[in-house]
């Protein structure tokens, strides 16, 4: 069963990445009731900020950045982006406020920049892509390829110009526009806004980084551990599968069946023992399994992030605030919880988790491009729904199930059908149990 174990290992690594992304969906949904469609793009942008940081340090200062700093910078980049998206696009839907002039500023600055650029090109002074300054990989962006004229205005000047123009547009538009509130169809509006943000980030990514895939530097060198299938089976039973089954059985018994603690422990132990027996028979076999150090890193990072996240949510003040807002926004605000700050924190946490997933994915699968977030984002959403949206352990379990299923489909059915299976699972789970494996049922109120 070496083949099966190998697919299981691949699936768990992939599933850990899905799980990390799914947690971001679930946190935001739990607090705001909003599906943040842009989350897949935050994952992409987080990966790219790590990539840019590494490239920038290498080309400008000659520093070879390690895994840790790159990860932290990616998390910071994604966190800032997540908070900015919430501030610019989602908060105006929720609270009465002026249309964020920041967005108009950026757009207005962009349009003004394009006009200046067009005029400049006519005069023989093409401006370089401002972001080419950061990338500097030679011909990676479409603009960098185009602009081969001798008199090219340096990209730093372009960047400053854009910033000045954006600031001007921001000052001009501030306070001029106000939002008209419509209570009806609020979900639809939010959903469309999220779709818009997602499209915007994708296309902005294509413009800034170029559509061609880039190879992410190998921050962690690939090193395969070859393990006998029997030994691997033993390890995995002990380390991952059995605890996972135990936790899953435990939570299903406690939540869905409302059993008391001793009974649940008893049944869960029984399930685990039965599974041990069945799996140990099933998994015995010849051959070797390759455990990549990167896969171990991915799984480890996922576990550590989840532990830290649980600590934040259950042991800190901001975690308490987040839980309070998730239960009842208005009541939480009456109790003195700073609503906006709490929501921003949720976005920051979810986004930095997505960045962790992105950087790990980039190290494991080496290629990154601006559209890399679309499909993992959608699949992670499926994972969040599968686990019960709003439920953090559920998101991780859902992610692992998705990853393992996908990898089994690739191994045993057909690699082109992997996406169909992912969405098939989604439709199935929505029809059979829309609240997900570990979600709680909320009756519809009139």
């Amino acid at each position, binding site marked *: 069963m070496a083949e099966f174990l190998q697919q299981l290992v691949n699936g768990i690594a992939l599933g850990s990445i899905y799980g990390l992304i799914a947690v971001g969906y679930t946190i935001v949904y739990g607090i705001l009731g909003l599906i943040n469609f842009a989350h897949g793009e935050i994952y992409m942008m987080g990966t790219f900020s790590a990539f840019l940081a590494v490239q920038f340090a290498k080309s400008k200062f000659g520093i070879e950045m390690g895994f840790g700093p790159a990860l932290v910078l990616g998390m910071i980049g994604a966190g800032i982006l997540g908070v900015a998206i919430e501030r610019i696009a989602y908060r105006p839907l929720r609270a009465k406020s002026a249309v964020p002039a920041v*967005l108009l500023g950026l757009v207005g600055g962009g349009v003004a920049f394009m006009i200046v650029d067009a005029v400049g090109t006519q005069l023989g002074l093409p401006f370089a892509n401002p972001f080419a300054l950061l990338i500097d990989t030679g011909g990676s962006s479409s603009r960098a390829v185009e602009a081969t004229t001798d008199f090219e205005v340096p990209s730093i000047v372009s960047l400053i110009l854009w910033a000045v123009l954006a600031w001007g547009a921001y000052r001009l538009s501030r306070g001029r526009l106000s939002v008209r509130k419509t209570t009806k169809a609020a979900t639809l509006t939010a959903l469309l806004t999220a779709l*818009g943000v997602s*499209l915007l980030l994708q296309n902005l990514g294509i*413009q800034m980084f170029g559509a061609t895939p880039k190879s992410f530097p190998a921050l962690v060198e690939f090193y395969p551990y070859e393990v006998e299938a029997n030994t691997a089976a033993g390890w995995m039973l002990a380390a991952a599968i059995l605890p996972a089954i135990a936790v899953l059985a435990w939570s299903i018994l406690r939540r869905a069946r409302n059993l008391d603690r001793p009974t649940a422990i008893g049944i869960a132990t029984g399930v685990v023992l039965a599974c041990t027996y069945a799996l140990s028979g099933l998994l015995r076999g010849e051959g070797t399994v390759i455990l990549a150090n990167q896969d171990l890193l991915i799984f480890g990072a996922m576990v550590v992030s989840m532990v830290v996240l649980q600590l934040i949510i259950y042991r800190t003040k901001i975690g308490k605030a987040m839980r309070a807002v998730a239960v009842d926004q208005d009541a939480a605000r009456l109790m003195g919880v700073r609503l906006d700050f709490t929501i921003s924190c949720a976005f920051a946490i979810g986004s930095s988790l997505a960045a962790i997933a992105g950087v790990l994915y980039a190290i494991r699968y080496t290629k990154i491009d601006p559209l890399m977030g679309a499909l993992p984002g959608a699949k992670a959403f499926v994972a969040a729904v599968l686990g019960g949206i709003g439920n953090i352990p559920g998101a991780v379990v859902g992610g692992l199930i998705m990853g393992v299923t996908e990898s089994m489909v690739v191994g045993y059915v*057909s690699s082109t059908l992997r*996406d169909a299976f992912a*969405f098939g699972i989604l*439709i199935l789970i929505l029809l059979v149990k829309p609240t997900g494996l570990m979600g709680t049922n909320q009756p519809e109120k009139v």
Partner: protein
Amino acid sequence: MFELSNYHIQVLAFMGINIILAVSLNLINGFTGQFSLGHAGFMAIGAYTAAILTKACGWPFLAATLAGAMLAFLFGLLLGIPILRLKGDYLAIATFGLSEIVRVAIVNFDDVSMKLAGYVGMGDLWPKEITRGALGYPAIPEVKSLLWIYGWAFVTCLVLRNIVRSSEGRAISSIGEDELAAESLGINTARYKTLSFAIGAFFAGVAGALFAHWVTFIKADLFKIDKSIEILLMVVLGGMGSLSGSVLGAVVLTILPEYLRMFAQWRMVIYPVLLILLMLTRPEGLLGKRELSSVIAGLFTRARRSAAAAAT
């Protein structure tokens, strides 16, 4: 008379196809209030069915179009029954998943159907190439006629207008207003939701067939989520629950990208920004729930009233 260039005719054709798509999606999203992100999937079904029937089986264009549309209708009916039990965000995601599955199914159709035919024992009889997978379906017989497209657009608008004004249409609108209230008034919500979903799918299939025979080359990637969002945007811009609004939205959003071409590569950046700004400033769309005729009539009465006020 002035001559239209090929470019203008092309834009006009796409405008007509977009009108069909937007108006039919408005029945699902606007009137029935069921958020569907899967319109491109039905369009793909119609496009592929009609293209295969005219090219490989030599059917006449109209018959192939109707067959493609009927298949989309059947899919809408069968899939609508389970899917439409879901609400809001979940429904949107499920329909998105459906259209992805349609796309993947088209790409893998040849392999999978070949294998299945092999199991049944008719592997030799089964044609090797049906959808031609990811490479796309080339050399579809060309039907470049604005008459067909605008004829169908007219039929679509007429049929949907009559549906909306009929008693079924009132039931459908009441579901859009408040599903719980409609159900408590004894309206069979599941039935009407499925019906409107299937009718929308039918016309999406028509649009797909027209599209396939206009461009003569289709591939599954043309019918991705981007296409669904594009159609949705037309509906939202025009106003959810306004048929003339959808026509307006389709016209504006077919022409606007052509003008945005002067920004070349920045076009696809500006487009979503406009969507976000629209959502933040005017979430109900240009016309809201009103029809164009009533808006114009409203303008006249206001003008008359102000004229009367000026006279006194």
